[in-house]
């Protein structure tokens, strides 16, 4: 189906002409969306379609606000919408509305329900599995029968549940989960308190590894471990945040999960531009995904990558996600030297 609404002034149509692509991202407090996803997508669209404009909105984790932003896109007459849903399971009616107006929707990162045209993502379950696996790997021989503390994401964030269940699926059987807590709003200070509670109730020797759902909370967790003088247990998060990478360099954090955002963003951008122009994009979506409402959605599912001290060079630095200079600021210069970075 060719893109472009029928009532908009800058008619998208076919060919190389311009148009408007709407980009809806779910939140603004973690680094990725504002610092990576958005610039990568905007950049790629600009490159592929210089006459295109991108209309951007961020929903600050508010599903209702995102619905209004979605409506605003339709009011503004955008030709294609890229949707990273706050709550992917409630979007069916929105997407139907867009479909009725002839505006195709690409689901980004989270599998939005409803008749979407394409889906590009990392698999959240998979992220969790990798996190669990990375912990077990770090424990090495001691993995069998090890005791793991889990500091999970927000109870109201559907992704958090997927991370958690992915990790559990790997850990269970091998390791024992001795403490598991969800943290409201992914709050690092609360994570710090929960970690202290874990240390207090289990004792400093009462656990062998710490699963922490993301790097943001990792800061608070590691703070608690250090304060208790515990520096020999593996700890890992996700997102490959700069602060997390720096901790990996100094050895206080063991791993993070790197979701190479650039390919994810750029593939999405390209699909969106092709939808705008009414071109075929089958070769961009080799996979297929099923949502509760729709089956056989053309998809690209990318593989997340665990990052440890040994693999920083080949992953985030190789991808130019961060330059060595970003990571190796004055404070970390020595540690970088030792690790052979920068």
């Amino acid at each position: 189906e060719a893109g472009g609404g029928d009532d908009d002034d800058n008619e998208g149509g076919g060919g190389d002409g311009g148009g408007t692509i709407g980009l809806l991202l779910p939140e603004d407090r973690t680094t990725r969306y504002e610092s990576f996803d958005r610039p990568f997508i905007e950049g790629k669209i600009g490159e592929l379609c210089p006459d295109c404009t991108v209309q951007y909105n961020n929903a600050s984790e508010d599903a209702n606000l995102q619905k209004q932003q979605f409506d605003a896109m339709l009011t503004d007459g955008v030709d294609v919408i890229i949707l990273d849903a706050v709550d992917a399971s409630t979007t069916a009616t929105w997407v139907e509305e867009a479909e009725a107006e002839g505006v195709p929707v690409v689901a980004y990162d989270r599998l939005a329900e409803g008749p979407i045209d394409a889906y590009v993502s990392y698999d959240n379950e998979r992220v969790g599995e990798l996190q669990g696996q990375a912990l077990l790997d770090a424990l090495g021989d001691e993995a069998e029968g090890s005791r793991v503390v889990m500091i999970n994401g927000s109870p109201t964030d559907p992704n958090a549940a997927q991370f958690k269940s992915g990790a559990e699926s790997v850990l269970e059987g091998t390791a024992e989960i001795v403490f598991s807590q969800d943290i409201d709003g992914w709050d690092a200070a609360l994570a710090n308190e929960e970690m202290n509670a874990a240390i207090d109730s289990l004792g400093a020797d009462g656990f062998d590894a710490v699963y922490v759902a993301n790097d943001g909370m990792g800061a608070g967790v590691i703070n608690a471990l250090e304060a208790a003088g515990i520096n020999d247990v593996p700890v890992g998060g996700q997102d490959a945040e700069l602060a997390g990478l720096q901790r990996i360099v100094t050895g206080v954090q063991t791993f993070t999960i790197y979701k190479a955002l650039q390919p994810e963003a750029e593939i999405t951008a390209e699909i969106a531009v092709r939808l705008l122009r009414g071109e075929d994009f089958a070769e961009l979506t080799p996979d297929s995904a099923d949502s509760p409402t729709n089956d056989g959605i053309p998809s690209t599912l990318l593989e997340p990558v665990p990052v440890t001290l040994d693999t920083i060079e080949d992953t985030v630095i190789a991808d130019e996600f961060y330059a060595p200079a970003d990571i190796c600021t004055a404070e970390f210069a020595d540690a970088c030297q030792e690790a052979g970075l920068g």
Partner: protein
Amino acid sequence: MSDKLAPDPRLLVRERGLAGYLEDFRRRITGGELGSIPVIVGMIIIAVVFESQTGTFLSPRNISNISVYIAGPGIMAVGIVLVLLLGEIDLSVGSMAGLSAAVWAVLSVSHGVNDLLAIVLAILAGAAVGTLHGFFFAKIGVPAFVVTLAGFLGWSGLQIWVMGDEGTINVPRDSLVRDFNNFYFSDISAAYGLAAVLSLGYLGALLFQERRRERAGLPTRPLSEIILRVGLVAVAAFITAYTLNQHRGLPLALVIFLVILLAADFMIRRTTYGRQIFAVGGNAEAARRAGINVERVRLTVFTLASALAALGGLFYAAQAGGASKSLGSGNLLMNVIAAAVIGGTSLFGGRGWIWSALLGTLVIQSITTGLNLMGMASEIQYMITGAVLLVAVVLDSISRRTQRTAGRT
């Protein structure tokens, strides 16, 4: 001389007729009694700025969307206005909205309870929660701020618990809740009819009242004032109706919101119960000494506020497309309270009107929608919303300052 006093010579009496009305109006304006004018002027400025920036702000589609969006927070704001009139606050309305959506969704979707029954039960759950708040506040004497702060935490915990393993429960296609967001009376006579009913009803009410006053020998408003007032209402109503008909017609959400506004307005201005609310908010001890059952007034107002929050929560679920663990968290609470205050209801009790729920919600929603249309970065949205909120009230405050009469201590 003392049995029938002459009118006070110091009272600057209004001339009869339109001239007198306008003169009186001018005097109020220059004296700083701006009433709701700042908000209305603010609304106009907001509309003009956004329209010039986006070209779509005043489109029928957007106006129609806004009229649907305001229903949920607006209904909740009506409850907050009532609570503010008491001089109290209810911090739990956001959590209550979320809890209500969860209750409805779990009952109706997961347990197969009849949809309408589930809606009623969700609202009753709200009423029960409000009664509980009212009990602790009115009977035990715990400050309402603390009671509802406990509620803010407790009910959102309960919401997450009620939702159980489901992160989100979708609104079924055939549910009335879906209609709260998606149903429009598409026959154009619906919108025009409502506009006509509102205008004529207002006219009738005014004429009836003035007739009675005249018969009782009390001062009356000039006919020209009545015509002017009704005229303004009619123009606003018909323009809105026309615009809505350009899109999909009259939204059910707007109808429900208007009915609630009219009912609440009637209640607080025309019934003894409403009078009691103002009295308790103005001076609770004086109200008690006048024989008013202060505890009952407080208890029932909190019941109403929570019930309205519960209803508002269903509109939220309708809009998002489902009930979730996070529905009602975030800025909802603050937005609803801000709406009531921006609309002109005092935080200190005893002063305000129901229509502030409409005006304030409209201002806040217009800003959000306008910024969405402009595709403003979210942190900039935060800052602009904060700034506009401030400006909206600054105008009012400045005018009140010039007028301030250094009343009693």
